[in-house]
């Protein structure tokens, strides 16, 4: 670059800037149209993360009292996390539930594998269905949170279940209930504190509607978890 003499006039610089902006826009051309959400390109901008980003976001969910998560993902919500955290959970539920059933003395062991379709339905409906409903409700009540940010927030809140599932290996009923309650508290707090900033702009009743939806869904998720997947205890 020539720092000494300003060779280009201002108009030329403006023209260059516009043409370079055009090139950038063509590169990031978003699909428009009614059925755009059915194309792959529509979702590509939401996978713009690296592995360190993902790990950082997961770590953020374990410290619910620091409301940094929303700021972390605001500019760059990603869908990789929600999808694959839930897939990992499905595998872990099956594996841990089967490990619990292993009993060396029994001749013909019978393992449960019907958890796979059940867990898939449960986790994916809660991870993607709840944010759908929540985002619609919030848009209706006037909160400025995009749909994908809500999915991202919800999907990452599922990562609290990762260590909980591993800990569910132990057979002690009291211990299981304790960690389930802890998980419920952690993820609900995480969601509420991160939404707090946005919700404070609303009236009290509207705020509680949203908090109510969030807490109910988390409660049903954790109850289902405990009662269906991990209630089997060997004699």
């Amino acid at each position: 670059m020539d720092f000494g003499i300003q060779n280009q006039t201002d108009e030329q610089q403006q023209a260059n800037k516009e043409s370079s902006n055009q090139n950038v826009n063509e590169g990031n051309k978003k699909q428009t149209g009614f059925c755009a959400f059915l194309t792959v390109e529509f979702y590509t901008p939401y996978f713009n993360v690296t592995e360190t980003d993902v790990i950082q976001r997961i770590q953020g969910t374990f410290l619910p009292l620091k409301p940094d998560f929303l700021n972390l993902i605001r500019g760059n919500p990603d869908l990789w996390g929600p999808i694959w955290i839930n897939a990992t959970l499905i595998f872990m539920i099956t594996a841990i539930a089967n490990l619990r059933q292993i009993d060396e003395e029994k001749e013909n062991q019978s393992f449960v594998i019907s958890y796979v379709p059940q867990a898939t339905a449960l986790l994916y409906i809660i991870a993607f269905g709840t944010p759908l409903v929540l985002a619609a409700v919030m848009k209706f009540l006037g909160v400025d949170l995009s749909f994908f940010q809500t999915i991202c927030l919800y999907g990452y809140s599922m990562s609290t279940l990762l260590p909980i599932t591993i800990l569910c290996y132990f057979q002690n009923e009291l211990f299981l209930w304790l960690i389930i309650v802890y998980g419920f508290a952690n993820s609900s707090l995480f969601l509420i504190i991160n939404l707090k900033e946005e919700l404070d702009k609303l009236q009290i009743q509207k705020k509680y509607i949203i908090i109510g939806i969030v807490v109910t869904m988390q409660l049903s998720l954790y109850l289902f978890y405990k009662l269906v997947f991990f209630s089997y205890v060997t004699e």
Partner: protein
Amino acid sequence: MDYTNQKHPQNYSQMEDLKTLDLEESVSETIMRDLRMIAYKLKYVLIPKEQEDNGKELRNWDLWGPLIFCLTLAMTLSFKADSTTSSSKSDVFAIIFVLIWVGAFVVTLNAQLLGGKVSFFQSVCLLGYCVFPINIEAIIIAFVGSYLPFVVKLIPVIICFAWSAYSSVGFMASLVPPHKKKLAVYPVFLFYLFLSWFSLIV
């Protein structure tokens, strides 16, 4: 062109020349040709030394191989399903079948969404062929599994899982930009882990 020397085509370009003879050959010959193609591709995918041309052979994708391995795995695992699981045989078969195809679909979609420019079916084909080691371990465990303690069963499972994962990871990792490699590779790893777990449990 002299076709007599080209009785056993090694790739699709040679097959094109033989198209005119398809209707005249016996059924067994057609089937054997397809089986030979599958065997060739299997060797290519699973034995890394064969890949001298950096995976170009994979452009001739086919879904017969994956289908055969998927069906074999599902049938092997549902064979003893009544005694080893609390679900019925058809449940096990359905779960495995759906898991393989939906899993391959989602893993490929994931690679595409992360920015990889790969043909969809090429990737599904590769993932399907790499299910073959899982097949081997499922058959081993189905026959001798009831006589072995759990820990001994783990050995072939881990070996075959590592073999599958290693074969497919090289291809998948080369598809996406370097800073997203682990994000594309982890789902492949999870997919084969899931299948290995089933072959161990059932």
